[in-house]
């Protein structure tokens, strides 16, 4: 099995020594993130997120299927996050690595279990027909912090996605093409975002945000918070690693909250910009019934 | 084979093999050929199950079995057939029992794990009376889930251990008492004290046990240890169940029936052969041209099957009155049912 290249001893010593002196290799502050870019594709539901060199693409699609027998009133919602060898040569297809398991569990807990998407709204005919919403996540480049980037991409993609409009007339279900009727966005309840903190030093008291791949390899432990802008924690996971002082978590939670608000703001702004650019001909304005009289 | 390879040299293998081929055989732990290793057993270890048991062998291997029962609607196609034959005809199906074997360090779809589970299932269902016990009425039946856990790493071939534990767990299994009658939807008594044993104490029927028997030379050896298994010429898994006899008389003893016999591929076939002194490379001679010829005291992996006479002898030894199966069942009878 191919193995990940490990940072050399001199790299290790250099980075950790620099951190002890309060310096990061790329001259960022400890709590400073790399520039975040978020772009949407031409299609609805395609979101491309990059944190520095880390780049993640998420694509949402929907189709009509039969709901699970045990939950006839719920739609189907899946997030697939298979990592391909494109991410790193050490990843083999069909052989889930630790990173992949943790990534898919994190998205499961943050987006699905926290009830961000109202799955009941995906139901068309109880027990017979429902929408199956599927998010495919592709990590295009891994330079650290893929958890946060992946989560942002998934949320952005779902928020941007519009499913075809349907009507139910008696027993007849009609699905309209975008030309016939304007597609509708998914019924969305709240937007949680992941914020990961990496701990360094003997005592784990140096806290870094948005580490690069090199920094990630050298951390002693990490902790991921998922919060929405209302200050609700959806998930916290510090899965092992060196022990960290308890009060530090409270500080981290506060930082995570403000960071989550930043992400929310960014997403809302980008969504608004995107909606505006799609509205060039002013078709929507014409279609509205309101006149300024 | 679920056991890890035994690390014995060809010389050691040859020594064990020749001492076991003597008449009577001399076993390294001093047992007689039909003697079993001591074991500790208890039942009712898991209050959350319908029946459970835990068995520890003296070599430290340990297994836990939990039995859970669920009510399931019998599939409609059975119902149709039953209409003609009347209520007396109780259609039973093999898939009412589900067995899952968990062995640490092995995947659950590993060939040896599946084979173990299938051998235990086959023995259970080979005893036709067993599935009949799960019949409630023409529309419903019990579905039994047997989860067999090997706690310790497999130190020897775990089949006898798992089989004995399963036997005890089934003996300790209790199902709620049926309150409803006929083909109506089943209703059960809430009182666990009123529940009934799947195998009633007073009837003589007992769940099957699977014994591992090895043949070495003309000797038949029961309950082989890991080392003995490593030199076995053939290994058999023999499953025996006690049938329900009409007249239960103490002096007559129980009626045993053979449920299944299976050949197990013994690990001895994979052992490296020894090199006779005469042909050792140390003395310069080439070891070629001696294929198939056995030299006294030099280990050679056994090939071929089991002789009919030996098979016959094994079955005789198991089934005869006061024989091995009788002895084991008597021993297990002593385990208190919680």
């Amino acid at each position, binding site marked *: 099995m191919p193995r990940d290249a490990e940072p050399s001893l001199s790299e290790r010593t250099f980075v950790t020594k620099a951190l002890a002196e309060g310096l990061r290799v790329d001259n960022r502050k400890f709590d400073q993130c790399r520039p975040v870019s978020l772009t949407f594709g031409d299609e609805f539901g395609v979101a491309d997120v990059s944190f520095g060199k880390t780049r993640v693409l998420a694509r949402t699609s929907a189709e009509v299927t039969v709901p699970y027998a045990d939950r006839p009133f719920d739609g189907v919602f899946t997030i697939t996050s298979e990592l391909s060898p494109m991410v790193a040569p050490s990843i083999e297809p069909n052989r889930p690595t630790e990173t992949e398991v*943790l990534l898919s569990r994190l998205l499961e807990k943050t987006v699905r279990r926290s009830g961000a998407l109202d799955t009941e709204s995906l139901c068309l005919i109880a027990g017979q027909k429902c929408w199956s919403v599927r998010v495919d996540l592709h990590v295009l480049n891994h330079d650290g912090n893929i958890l946060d980037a992946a989560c942002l991409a998934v949320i952005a993609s779902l928020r941007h996605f519009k499913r075809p409009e349907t009507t139910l007339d008696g027993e007849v279900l009609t699905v309209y093409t975008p030309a016939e009727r304007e597609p509708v966005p998914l019924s969305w309840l709240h937007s949680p975002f992941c914020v990961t903190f990496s701990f360094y030093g003997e005592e784990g008291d140096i806290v870094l945000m948005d580490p690069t791949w090199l920094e990630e390899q050298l951390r002693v432990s990490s902790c991921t918070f998922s919060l929405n802008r209302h200050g609700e924690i959806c998930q916290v996971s*510090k*899965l092992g690693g060196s*022990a960290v002082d308890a009060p530090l978590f409270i500080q981290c939670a506060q930082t995570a909250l403000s960071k989550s608000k930043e992400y929310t703001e960014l997403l809302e702004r980008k969504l608004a910009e995107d909606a505006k650019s799609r509205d060039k001909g002013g078709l929507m304005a014409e279609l509205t019934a309101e006149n300024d009289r | 084979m679920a056991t890890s390879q035994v690390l014995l040299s060809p010389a050691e293998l040859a020594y064990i093999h020749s001492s076991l081929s003597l008449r009577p055989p001399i076993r390294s732990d001093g047992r007689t050929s039909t003697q079993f290793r001591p074991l500790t057993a208890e039942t009712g270890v898991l209050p*959350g199950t319908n029946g459970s048991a835990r068995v520890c062998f003296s070599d430290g291997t340990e297994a836990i079995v*939990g039995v*859970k029962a669920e009510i399931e609607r019998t599939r409609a196609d059975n119902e149709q057939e039953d209409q003609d034959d009347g209520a007396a005809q109780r259609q039973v199906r093999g898939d009412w029992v589900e067995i899952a074997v968990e062995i640490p360090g092995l995947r659950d779809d590993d060939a040896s794990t599946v084979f173990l589970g299938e051998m235990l299932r086959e023995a259970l269902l080979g005893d036709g009376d067993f599935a009949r016990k799960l019949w409630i009425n023409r529309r419903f039946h019990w579905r039994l889930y047997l989860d067999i856990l090997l706690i310790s790493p497999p130190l020897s071939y775990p089949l006898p251990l798992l089989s004995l534990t399963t036997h005890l767990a089934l003996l300790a299994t209790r199902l709620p008492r049926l309150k409803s009658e006929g083909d109506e939807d089943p209703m059960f008594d809430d009182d666990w004290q009123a529940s009934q044993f799947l195998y009633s104490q007073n009837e003589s029927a007992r769940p099957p046990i699977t014994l591992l028997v090895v043949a070495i030379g003309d000797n038949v050896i029961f309950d082989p240890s890991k080392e003995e298994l490593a030199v076995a010429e053939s290994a058999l898994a023999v499953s025996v169940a006690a049938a329900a006899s009409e007249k239960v008389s103490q002096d007559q003893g129980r009626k045993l029936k053979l449920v299944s016999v299976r050949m197990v591929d013994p690990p001895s076939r994979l052992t490296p052969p020894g090199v006779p002194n005469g042909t050792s490379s140390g003395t310069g001679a080439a070891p070629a041209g001696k294929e198939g010829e056995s030299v006294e005291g030099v280990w050679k992996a056994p090939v071929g099957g089991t002789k009919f006479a030996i098979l016959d002898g094994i079955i005789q030894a198991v089934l005869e009155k006061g024989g091995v199966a009788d002895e084991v069942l008597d021993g297990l009878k002593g385990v208190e049912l919680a």
Partner: protein
Amino acid sequence: MPLDTSTYSLALLRVDGRRWNELRRLHAQIRTQAAADGSSYLEMGHTKVMCVLTGPAEQNQSQRRGQTSGGGGSARDTASINVNVMIAGFSSVDRKKRGRNDKRTQELEITIAKTFSSIVHTHLFPHSSISISLHVLSSDGSLLAALLNAATLALIDAGIPMSDYIAACTAGSTSSHSASDDSADPLLDLNTQEEQELPYLTVATLGSSDRIAVLNCESRLQVSRLEGMLVVGVDGCKQVKQILDRVIREKGVQMIREGAVDRSDTMVMDLDE
């Protein structure tokens, strides 16, 4: 299964009759398995787990490929810790079979492996592996905590050097995530019923210090409530550590009495207590 937890405010007693800061009965044994290098059996209320540990031993072929090896450091200079969690089909009320590839089980395995690889002095055993098999016989809440505690005991039983105990327990809050009432009490050591209904987190600390090795929360809760729950959880871990320590000491005293181990001069334990 919606559970009526509203009665809590009347008598301040929980569904099983405990008060907010009470642990369930914690019963543990070590050296339960003769054939293993280290073993333990632990009950936290109705959650029952068994741990069997082998190692440090030579790595076998499949482990060398490094499946669930605990992160940190290159695999060759330190012992790798392999964790295998087996949740028995009969462990919950309704029988549910979980495959080996279940992501939730894998996450538990990774968490336990990572926790112990930073506590155990793995650098003392290069080229070797420690495999921990955990069997869940019955699960009634606080599963991860019980698994961590059982693994700690088994590691101590095997005599593998480590810097301190890992003691774990769960902490919850009486109000659901949406309600923002300030009167909500934190709760200690939740059972399944409470876990399904209330927000909770699992905390594991290093010995009886305030340092947290594992913090896992899967339910929605207000960020302001985190601190209160964390304090209760850390306090619970201290109680758990005391109990685990007592189990080890009692077994040690018993082994000296039975003559299994020689009494050495460096021992400060008082055998007569």
